[in-house]
């Protein structure tokens, strides 16, 4: 169970879109980090393996661009929605099984968090 799930949490749709945009931008940055790591590994591979590896790097690069594009789109859409328009977000937040992501989004949407200095476990997945 997600510890940070809160009941009846409502947030402006514009804010929700903005929070999603930040998360996509972060995911794109993580792709760039992965791409850089793969680049370092590729130098140590035999020539015959490099072509296949290069294809993987190309996919990561495309994924980063896709996420950056979606982030930009979502950010712009958030500016189009009047701030008075709100929606309940708790059910959607409870569906996020990656604990760190759920925690960050809950905090950003006004649901509070563990305590700002507590270290998050970025890879923790909440199992059902």
């Amino acid at each position, binding site marked *: 169970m997600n510890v940070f799930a809160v009941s009846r949490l409502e947030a402006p749709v514009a804010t929700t879109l903005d929070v999603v945009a*930040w998360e996509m931008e972060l995911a794109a940055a993580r792709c760039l980090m992965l791409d850089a790591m793969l680049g370092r590994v590729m130098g140590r591979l035999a020539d015959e393996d490099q072509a296949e590896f290069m294809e993987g790097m190309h996919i990561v690069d495309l994924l980063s661009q896709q996420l950056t594009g979606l982030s930009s789109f979502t950010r712009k859409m958030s500016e189009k929605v009047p701030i008075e328009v709100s929606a309940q977000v708790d059910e959607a937040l409870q569906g996020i099984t990656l604990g760190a992501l759920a925690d960050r989004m809950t905090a950003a949407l006004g649901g509070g968090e563990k305590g700002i200095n507590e270290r998050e476990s970025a890879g923790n997945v909440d199992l059902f």
Partner: protein
Amino acid sequence: MKTTASRIAVADTDRTVLELLQIRLELSGHRVYVSRDSAELMEAVKNARPNAMILDYNLQGAGAKGVMEELRRKSLLTFPVLLMGRNLTPENLQEIMQLGARSCIVKPFSGQDILERVSWLMRPAPAARPVHYLNV
């Protein structure tokens, strides 16, 4: 965009923004010191002696204004500061710029936006025009 490697202190209570900035700046070759509140930031500044700082207006603790005042009081403000924030008013900006921030960037922004702004920030300040209002 490749910029000259520097030590950059980044302070924001929002973990997503903090990690995004850390990844983007580190990939550009900078050394990054992240803080989530004003007390952590003051420690980072004292220990790391950064070349630049990116500071959120609503930083947990003393906020950007309190941080800038303390840095000035302790004569630690020896580097350019980029202020970031959401819904900043001209009064907010003027207040922080008068305390020594060199530039500001309005949230939301992209990873690319911040790299461009940091690149601008690291250039020597023009002597006669230390304050630069951008993107407001």
